[in-house]
C-alpha cells in the first residue's frame, strides 16, 4: 500500500533481523540441497566477491532513497569513471592517479545530480535519468564506443590481490560499507539524511541545510559509483560500456528488499547488505542446483516476493 498515512514507522533494527532470517533460511536450504557445492569456501567467496561492487552502489543508493530521492545514474557514472580511470592510467601509468580520477569524476557527477535536485527542484528520477544518458553517452564519446582495457598492473594487481584469502576488492567494499553504516546510524550526517526523507519541510524549518545536505548525499552516491567504476575496471579488466544498464534497478531493488522505504525516512545499510545478498544467493543457488535459466528467472522472482512477504507479514503481525 502507499507508504504514507497512518502506518507506524518501521524500526530499522527489528526489520533487519527478519529479512536477515530469510537470508539465513535461504543459505541453509541451498546448503542442504547442494551440500558439496554450495556451502564451500570456494563458492561463498565467489558470492561475496561478485556482490561487493554492487554493494557499494546500493549503499550510496540507501542514503539517496532515505532522503526520498532516487539515483538512476549510478551505472552510467560507474562506466564514465572507469573510462576516466583507464584513460588516466594510460596517460600517466599510475593506478593511484587513475583511482583519484575515477573518484573525482564520480563525485562530480553526483554533485551535479545533487545540485539539480536540490537547487533546481527537478524530480530526482528525471535528473538522474538525464545524467544516466549523459554519462553513458559521454563514456561512449571518450572511448568511441569500444570497451577500454584496464592496464595489466591494475587488472592483475588490485584486481587479483587478496588478503587473508579474501580479495582486496571485497575488503575495500566491506570497509566502506561498514563505515557508512555507522555514519548513517550514529552521526549528524545520518540524522539529517533521515530527517530530510521523513519531512523535508520540517527539516528545513528545523534549520537543517536541506539543499546542501542533498548535494552531499548525491555526491556521496556519485563518489561510490566512481569508486565502483575503478574497482570494476580492476576486477573485470574492462570499462564495460554496455554492461551496467541494469545496475540502477539492481541497487534500488537491494535497498528496498533491505527494508528501506522508497518514500524516505527509514532504512538501514545493514538491510541493504542483506538486500544485495538475497538475489545473489538465489541466483547462485539455483544455478548450482541446475535449474534451467528461464525457470531461474521465474523462481528468483517468486522467491524474492515471498522473502519480502515473510518479512512484511511479521511486521504486520506486530503492528496490528
Amino acid at each position, binding site marked *: 500500500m502507499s507508504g504514507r498515512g497512518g502506518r507506524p514507522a518501521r524500526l530499522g533494527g527489528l526489520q533487519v533481523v527478519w529479512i536477515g532470517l530469510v537470508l539465513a533460511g535461504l543459505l541453509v536450504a541451498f546448503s542442504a540441497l547442494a551440500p558439496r557445492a554450495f556451502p564451500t569456501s570456494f563458492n561463498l567467496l565467489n558470492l561475496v566477491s561478485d556482490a561487493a561492487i554492487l554493494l557499494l552502489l546500493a549503499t550510496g543508493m540507501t542514503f539517496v532513497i532515505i532522503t526520498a530521492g532516487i539515483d538512476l545514474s549510478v551505472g552510467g557514472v560507474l562506466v564514465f569513471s572507469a573510462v576516466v580511470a583507464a584513460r588516466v592510467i594510460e596517460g600517466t601509468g599510475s593506478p593511484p592517479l587513475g583511482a583519484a580520477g575515477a573518484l573525482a569524476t564520480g563525485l562530480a557527477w553526483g554533485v551535479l545530480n545533487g545540485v539539480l535536485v536540490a537547487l533546481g527542484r527537478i524530480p530526482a528520477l528525471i535528473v538522474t535519468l538525464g545524467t544516466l544518458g549523459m554519462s553513458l553517452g559521454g563514456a561512449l564519446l571518450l572511448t568511441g564506443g569500444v570497451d577500454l582495457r584496464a592496464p595489466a598492473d591494475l587488472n592483475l594487481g588490485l584486481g587479483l590481490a587478496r588478503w587473508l584469502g579474501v580479495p582486496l576488492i571485497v575488503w575495500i567494499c566491506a570497509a566502506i560499507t561498514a563505515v557508512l553504516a555507522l555514519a548513517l546510524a550514529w552521526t549528524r550526517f545520518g*540524522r539529517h539524511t533521515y530527517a530530510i526523507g521523513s519531512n523535508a519541510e520540517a527539516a*528545513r524549518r*528545523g534549520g537543517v541545510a536541506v539543499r546542501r545536505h542533498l548535494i552531499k548525499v548525491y555526491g556521496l552516491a556519485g563518489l561510490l559509483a566512481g569508486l565502483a567504476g575503478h574497482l570494476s575496471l580492476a576486477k573485470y579488466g574492462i570499462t564495460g560500456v554496455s554492461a551496467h544498464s541494469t545496475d540502477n534497478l539492481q541497487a534500488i531493488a537491494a535497498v528496498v528488499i533491505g527494508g528501506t522505504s522508497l518514500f524516505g525516512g527509514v532504512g538501514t545499510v545493514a538491510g541493504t547488505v542483506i538486500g544485495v545478498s538475497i538475489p545473489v544467493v538465489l541466483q547462485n543457488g539455483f544455478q548450482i542446483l541446475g535449474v534451467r535459466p528461464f525457470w531461474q528467472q521465474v523462481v528468483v522472482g517468486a522467491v524474492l516476493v515471498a522473502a519480502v512477504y515473510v518479512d512484511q507479514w511479521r511486521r504486520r503481525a506486530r503492528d496490528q
Partner: protein
Amino acid sequence: MAVPLIAARGIEKSYGQVEALRGADFSLGAGEVVALIGDNGAGKSTLAKILSGVERPDGGTVEVDGAPVAFGSVEEARAAGIETVYQDLALCADLSPAANFFLGRERLRPGLLGLLGVLDNAAMRRETQEACERLGVRLASQSAPVSALSGGQRQGVAVARAVTWARRAVFMDEPTAALGVVQTRRVLDLIRSVRDSGVSVVLISHNMQDVMAVSDRVEVLRLGRRVARFDTARVSMEELVGAMTGVLEQWESQG
C-alpha cells in the same frame, strides 16, 4: 515605546488567487507577550511563518531591533534568536522525539567522536525527557518515532523544543490546541516565565481565556489585515470577539 523587537509593516502574501495577507502590520516589544488572534483563515499562521523566515512575503517590510531584515531562511531567523511552534508542528514523523527536539542542533559526543560527527543520543534523550516533563508531557517510550505519539504528546515536543531554544522571541501558533488541561496550564505558566527571562512571546490562540490570562497586548487580524490592537488589561472578551468577527470594525483602537 522603545524600538520594538519586531516590527512588520504592510505585509502582503498571496497563494495563487488567495490573498492570505493584504498589508498586515504587527509589532512585538522586548519582553512582552502579544496575543495574535483572528478568525480561521485570517492569516495568523501565514504571518507567523513570514516572521520566522519560513515564507517570503510578497510585499511589506520587517524590522528587527529597528533594522530592516529580509529573512531568506529559517536559519537567519533562528540566528536572530527567534523560534517557532508551527501550527502543523513540523516534526519528522519517522524520528524519535529527541531527534526532533535537537533537529538542526544535534548534540555531539565529546572528544574525537564528536569531531567525527557522532551523536550523543543519551544526552539528547535525557534533555528531551526533562523538557517534556517540565510541561507535564509523559512519553511512554523515548525510542518510538513521533508518529507513535498521541496528538498532545507531539505538541508537547514541539512546544518544549521552541521554548528551550528561543533567545529573543518565540512564536507559538496554537500551542495548546491538543494539550490536556494540566499541560495547557503549564504552557501558560511557561509563557510567563519565558517572558520574565526576557524572551518575547507571540501567542496565536482561539482560546480567549488563555489570551486574557497571559498576554500583555492583543493584536487582531481580519481578512489579512490588522484591524485592532488592545492592551489586555483594558479589554473585554466581547470586544475581542467583536474585533475578530468584524462586528466592531469601526473601532480602530489605541496603540
